């Protein structure tokens, strides 16, 4: 490769990075400028007193609190379904599956990853209808159905990142515990998984982000404009991404649209908090696996 080509590639890489950073700063900056002025307790709790709302003594009717709570419960429930199944499948593909099985499963998960979220939402809706007809009439589109559908949506990320993280471990690490008399399961549990935690957590973080932002899936599976705090997994619920969509498509005054910007900032903040928790858990698990004395 000659010097000019090298310079062009390096220049293009720099330019792409700068453009990306610029886009991120512009979007968050725009959101902050537009939404900053409405960010207050009133936006979140409306006319209800903060403690009354937090202690669930009174319903919040004109604030984002139910949508914030709904989003948090939705994201946590979805990743609770998706993480064990995703990591276990990733382990199976990386450590147990033979080449032929691996090829078939990889293709299937790639297809799953490429399915539009509205189709996953439709699947969730069909599941709700099926359960309503054949299991219990109490089951309708609800938080549980939404979380299962979202889990399907994010499963491929967790599976693939787990598989890639495990397969990417160098041979000396892979064999070190086995050579010391570890069984295959001990090797996976005590060495391979802790060593792959960074890669696995990047999949989990991606999954959290996707669960927090997806609107198409939840629109068909249980989210509503007004539902209050979800009382159980079988209730309808409110969620921030749907609120943002609803406000931006139905607003009647500029002030109403501003609450959408405020909600966007809160949604970003929730993602940051969840990412931080995921990062903290990763550090804690790594410490417990390796560095605890």
């Amino acid at each position, binding site marked *: 490769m000659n010097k000019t080509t090298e310079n062009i590639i390096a220049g293009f890489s720099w330019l792409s990075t700068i453009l990306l950073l610029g886009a991120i700063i512009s979007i968050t900056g725009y959101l902050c400028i537009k939404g900053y002025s409405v960010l207050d307790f009133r936006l979140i709790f409306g006319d209800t007193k903060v403690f009354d709302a937090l202690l669930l003594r009174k319903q919040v009717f004109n604030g984002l609190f139910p949508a914030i709570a709904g989003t948090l419960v939705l994201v946590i429930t979805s990743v609770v379904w998706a993480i064990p199944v995703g990591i276990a499948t990733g382990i199976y593909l990386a450590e147990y599956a*033979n*080449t032929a099985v691996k090829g078939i499963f990889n293709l299937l998960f790639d297809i799953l990853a490429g399915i539009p979220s509205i189709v996953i939402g439709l699947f969730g809706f069909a599941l709700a209808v099926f359960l309503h007809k054949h299991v219990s009439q109490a089951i309708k589109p609800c938080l549980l159905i939404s979380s299962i559908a979202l889990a399907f949506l994010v499963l491929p990320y967790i599976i693939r990142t787990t598989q890639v993280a495990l397969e990417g471990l160098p041979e*000396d*690490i*892979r*064999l*070190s*515990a*086995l*050579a*010391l*008399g*570890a*069984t*295959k399961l*001990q090797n996976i549990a*005590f*060495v391979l998984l802790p*060593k792959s935690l960074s890669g696995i957590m990047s999949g989990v973080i991606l999954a959290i982000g996707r669960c927090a932002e997806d609107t198409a899936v939840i629109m068909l599976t249980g989210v509503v404009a007004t539902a209050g705090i979800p009382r159980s997994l079988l209730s309808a619920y409110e969620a921030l991404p749907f609120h943002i969509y609803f406000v931006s498509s139905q607003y009647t005054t500029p002030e109403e649209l501003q609450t959408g910007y405020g909600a966007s900032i809160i949604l970003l903040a929730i993602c940051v908090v969840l990412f931080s928790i995921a990062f903290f858990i990763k550090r804690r698990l790594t410490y417990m*696996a*390796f*560095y*605890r*004395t």
Partner: protein
Amino acid sequence: MNTGEQGNIKIKVNNLTFSYRGRQILSDISERFEEYAVTAIIGPSGVGKSTFLMTLNRLWENIPEAHMSGKVEIKFDGRFTDIYDRSFLPSNLRRLVGTVFQKPNPLPMSIFRNIAFPLKLSGVRNKSIIAFKVEEALKRAYLWEEVKDRLSQNALALSGGQQQRLCIARSLVLEPEVLLLDEPTSSLDEKAAEVIEELILHLKERITILVVSHYLDQVKRIADRVVQFSGGGIKPFAAAME
């Protein structure tokens, strides 16, 4: 040093053939290895020396698309045992046949936990027994004096030579009867290599050692016997020296 068979036999290999992805790497190897001796395995790169070691601890079974035929017997408790017998678990075998790799591979944990790790895997829970065995292993690997005051320090902070001795200590903590060393000094400087050589000579009093080495000078210093690998088989050492 000699090139013939001598003393008590510890390992018997019969008609061993090994292939990886359809390519034959070892072909019909039959060999005997003496007890409490250092046998050096030499030969050019890619002739299957490391692969051969992997057939003695069944580590190759973790490599996809690898196949082996033949028989390997190791004497445990005075009796030869077919290590590929279905009733003989690979994890049990690897506690009796320790392995040290070319590149030091301590786990990213403290020095103490690195050495205690194999004990934990084999179900030892008593803390005082673990502490005693860790100290013994570090002493046998000539590392105790250098690390006794910083056992809780991360093992990755040690020098290359210290890390390799740590890996030897980690194998020794299980009190193996055979130790397989795959080019244990190739990534170390001359001084660190000398310490490892001295350690090998000391260990052979209680352990049967097979060491893969590329350095003929080193082989002359440490080996009681030499096996030359060439073209997937074994050829007499005298010919190799020429």
